[in-house]
């Protein structure tokens, strides 16, 4: 049964390894789950889930797997205390359960009505009256295995219910997130910092001292290459009408990019729906300030990482036809798709980020052009997960089609 849970977790996308599973089994053997489902829920989460981003997946997997299991919940805190007193735990719970087993819901309700009629004052502790603590089936914070909770917080909430609440939903990384998360994602571009080229200009003090000491005091200087990020980024952003609904998302990404001043070079241009002869300097896309695309293609070296952000949704002619540009007063000699292909050929490290969620790509308005463009550029959705994948794909040179 437990092995199945392992595969359920895997199916829900949790990267669980056998090692961790082994230690979980060891922990279970050591009795760390306190023989309750709640205990098992927290134990499993602590041991198998290694980032808050996966808490939600764990919750879902757990709820799905254990949803049909109804147990009289264990009493973790109580058990700890009993253990401290070195009382055999099973005896106590069994005794408790036997005592309270027969009550079903109707009977409970009826009894509650009776008690309410009888009871005239507050009551805490004890085993009969409605109140807090104690083992009476009524009230809250008590320890009756099948009672009715009245107000207060459930102290021993069923694990399935805790899992079902999905409190960690907001930490999912496949949801779109804020600037900070983007920044962290972009920071990964620093991983392929290279120390291979460049002159050795930095004095390595520690190594110099070590070497000098090895030489019994004769000075020997050791030089190092400075640590520098060699990454250069060319960011092209769609600011066309269909992108307005995603402007907040793109703003966040842009802020994040701007703040991450760890790139060697960062160039940002805008385009309207599709790229033609002009790359604009500001989101208004006016011909007052632009750089010819041709110039970019000729002057930037091909090791620039090209990141395109756009919904890739446009009229078919805008992408495929000569003269298909959406602006009235402009004319393009080359079809948009040709420009995209040229960019792709020039910049082998490139990726297209699409703010439209991936599951819509096949049937949204722009499905045709999305499909066409994703044949040219590797396309990822604009979420933190997508950005992660995009950055991973930016590490590898990909042959243009």
């Amino acid at each position: 049964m437990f092995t199945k849970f392992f595969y359920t977790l895997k199916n829900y996308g949790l990267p669980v390894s056998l090692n961790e599973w082994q230690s979980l089994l060891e922990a279970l053997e050591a009795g760390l789950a306190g023989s309750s489902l709640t205990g098992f829920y927290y134990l499993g989460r602590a041991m198998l889930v290694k980032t808050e981003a996966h808490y939600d997946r764990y919750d879902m997997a757990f709820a799905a797997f254990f949803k049909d299991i109804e147990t009289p919940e264990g009493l973790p805190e109580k058990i700890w205390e009993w253990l401290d007193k070195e009382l055999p735990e099973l005896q106590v719970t069994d005794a408790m359960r036997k005592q309270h087993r027969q009550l079903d819901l109707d009977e409970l309700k009826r009894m509650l009505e009776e008690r309410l009629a009888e009871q005239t004052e507050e009551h805490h502790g004890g085993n009969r009256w409605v109140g807090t603590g104690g083992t009476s089936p009524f009230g809250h914070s008590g320890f009756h295995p099948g009672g009715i909770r009245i107000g207060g917080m459930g102290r021993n909430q069923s694990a399935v219910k805790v899992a079902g609440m999905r409190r960690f939903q907001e930490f999912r990384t496949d949801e779109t997130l804020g600037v900070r998360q983007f920044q962290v994602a972009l920071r990964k571009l620093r991983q392929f910092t290279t120390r291979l080229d460049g002159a050795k200009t930095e004095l390595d003090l520690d190594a110099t001292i070590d070497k000098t000491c090895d030489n019994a005091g004769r000075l020997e200087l050791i030089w190092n290459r400075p640590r520098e990020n060699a990454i250069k980024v060319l960011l092209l952003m769609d600011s066309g009408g269909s992108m307005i609904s995603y402007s907040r998302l793109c703003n966040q990404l842009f802020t994040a990019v701007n703040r991450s001043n760890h790139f060697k070079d960062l160039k940002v241009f805008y385009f309207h729906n599709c790229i033609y002869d002009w790359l604009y300097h500001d989101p208004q896309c006016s011909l007052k300030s632009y750089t010819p695309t041709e110039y970019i293609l000729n002057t930037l070296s091909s090791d620039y990482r090209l990141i395109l952000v756009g919904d890739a949704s446009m009229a078919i002619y805008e992408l495929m036809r000569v003269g298909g540009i959406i602006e009235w007063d402009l004319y393009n000699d080359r079809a948009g798709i040709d420009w995209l292909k040229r960019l792709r050929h020039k910049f082998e490290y490139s990726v297209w980020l699409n703010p439209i969620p991936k599951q819509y790509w096949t049937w949204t308005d722009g499905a045709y052009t999305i499909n066409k463009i994703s044949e040219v550029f590797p396309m990822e959705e604009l979420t933190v997960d997508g950005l992660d994948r995009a950055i991973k794909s930016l590490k590898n040179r990909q042959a243009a089609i």
Partner: protein
Amino acid sequence: MSASVKAYGGSSGYIVSDELRNSVNIAIALQKPLLIKGEPGTGKTMLAQSIAEALNMDLIIWNIKSTTKAQEGLYVYDTVQRLYDSQFGDGDVGNIKKYIKLGKLGEAFLAPKQVVLLIDEIDKADLEFPNDLLWELDQMSFYIPETKETITAKQRPIVIITSNAEKELPDAFLRRCIFHYIAFPDPDTMESIISVHHPKLEKKLLEQAMETFYLLRNVPDIQKKPSTSELIDWLQALVVGGVNPNRIKKDLPFLGVLLKKNEDLDTLLQQLQGKGSTKNPGVLGRFR
């Protein structure tokens, strides 16, 4: 869990949730490092202090900086001192042991009693840093080539590691840890946390301040949300400043204690303005 294993049950100066306490006890029982993540100011560092206090152990803190190397936690071979001594003839240069200085990890290994070792903000260091510590944290021992000595832990220390998620930690490292994410406390928990720090707080003041605090946290687009430690500081400021509780929500006094970024102040002011510019003349006047 057998009675011989120590169980952590919280301490008087620190409010701990059931989940967190369970995680701590799991980590202690399995003798694995406990990795704690959470928003800044949710008491990650305090946890180690609380554990040390509750279990009556010494606490060894290893603060990680961007320049920290894993080697420094094990030991440092003071070659300069040795060279100096050799040239000026002080001491016995032949005894290399004298120039081996143990780092925090080494200290924790050699402590006569079990200790709590806090590796604070591990994500500050280089990407490879956690990987360099894999073996040492797993086996709780390391080898010093200079003296041909192996340092092994006399008692496996309880290792608490905190991270602010500035960098992703390597998978191999994560696999060896117990992980816990400290969620932001709900108002009830928050009240009990505050009562630990400010036991004699006026009820009215607390109510108003809490309400304002959660209001601020819920303002969308705020980049650095105020956290527990900021709320505690703010309450201190309110008490010292003798602010009338009824004016807290209207005036938002000492806002700088809660919001640390200019952008956030701007965002907040915009939001307030959006609700009606005449409604909050007190706040707006303050910043003009």
